[in-house]
């Protein structure tokens, strides 16, 4: 009885999490001018290397470091997360829908964690990654936030500090997992590397 009660409670929480919108003022994709495609991108597709400081928060634990994103083309990127002190945590490549893990420390090497990060970066690189997405625009070509997915892994992304068409602060949140990833354009000069 106790177990069935607990399962019911979990199902209720998960279903409520799936239904309750995080982006209350947002509009669904089909109600935007981009229902047929071309949602404004928030990450440049031109081949380049960009560097961000990152802060990963899970419950009360926090990890900070640097994320380096090398874009070879619209659908091809390599992402490396390292500590400021120099140790690499994670190195993976996204090509189309495929992921190739080049390196991952043991503590991070969990399928669910990797798939969640994969999905987060896929949404970041292609904001119309899924039809089940709500958007918040500040102007027709500027995306301020989006909400995507259902259930416990529901994702909320906020884009701010726009500079020359691209946001320099990106907040990725999974509120029901109490997990967030903050990316802030770093002071490293990308031209120098």
């Amino acid at each position, binding site marked *: 009885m106790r177990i069935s009660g607990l399962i019911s409670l979990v199902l209720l929480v998960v279903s409520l999490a799936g239904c309750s919108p995080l982006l209350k003022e947002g509009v669904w994709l089909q109600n935007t001018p981009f229902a047929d495609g071309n949602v404004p991108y928030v990450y440049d597709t031109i081949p380049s290397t960009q560097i961000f400081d990152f802060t990963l928060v899970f419950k009360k634990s926090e990890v*900070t470091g640097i994320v380096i994103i090398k874009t070879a083309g619209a659908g091809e990127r390599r992402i*490396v997360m390292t500590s*400021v002190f*120099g*140790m690499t945590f994670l190195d993976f490549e996204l090509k189309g829908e495929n992921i190739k893990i080049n390196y991952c420390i043991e503590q991070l090497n969990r399928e669910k964690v990797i798939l969640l990060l994969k999905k987060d970066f896929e949404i970041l690189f292609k904001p119309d990654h899924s039809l089940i997405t709500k958007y918040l625009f500040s102007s027709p070509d500027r995306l301020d936030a989006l909400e995507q997915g259902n259930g416990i892994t529901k994702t909320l992304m906020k884009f701010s500090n726009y500079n020359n068409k691209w946001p320099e602060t990106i907040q990725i949140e999974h509120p029901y997992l109490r997990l967030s990833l903050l990316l802030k354009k770093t*002071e490293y000069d990308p031209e120098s590397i």
Partner: protein
Amino acid sequence: MIRAALLLFISLATVSSSWCQSDLKKLSGSEVAAFDSKLKSRSDATETMIADFRQEKSMEMLKNKMVSKGVFKYKKADKIAFLYSQPMVYHMVINSQKIRILSNGKNQIIDLKNNPVMREVRSLIAASFLGNLSQVGATYKINYFGNKNGIVVVVVPQSKQLSSVITRITIYFKGSDAEIERLKIEEGSGSVTEYIFTNQRINTDITDEDFRIN
């Protein structure tokens, strides 16, 4: 064996010009003992050290090295601080069994018990300054090489857990006074991070406040 020798050659061949010469020779037992003794003498005379440091991270995906700079502080026997000032302010202070990280203006305290990699890096840095590299234990394979410019100590972790993260640590001691010139960490990821120490000042006034954790 050939692969290991090749890796060692590549490792030794990619350092600064003063170490690039192919005249590095493996030290004999008596030469290692003499170096250990010199390191111990230097350590006995060193209570504190301050140096400027330059961190260079090389990655296969980057054309150039990622460079950060700051001030390094050491106080006998287990206090170490890397105070980054460029391109951003970031502090990593190790005091006994705790690490304090200052990032984005916020402090975070980590217990070294939960971070085996940083614990080993701390142990090796401290052993280098304390002059007891030969006593770091069976968890490492240590080889000593030398030429007229100084001594190169190559440390290879033997534990599976550590060697998956760090494959090799190379410590370069300059000249006749066994001064640490650089520390090179090669990772399981293939990346290489070097810490180059310059403008070293020994036994200057460093207070415990510089290593405060809480």
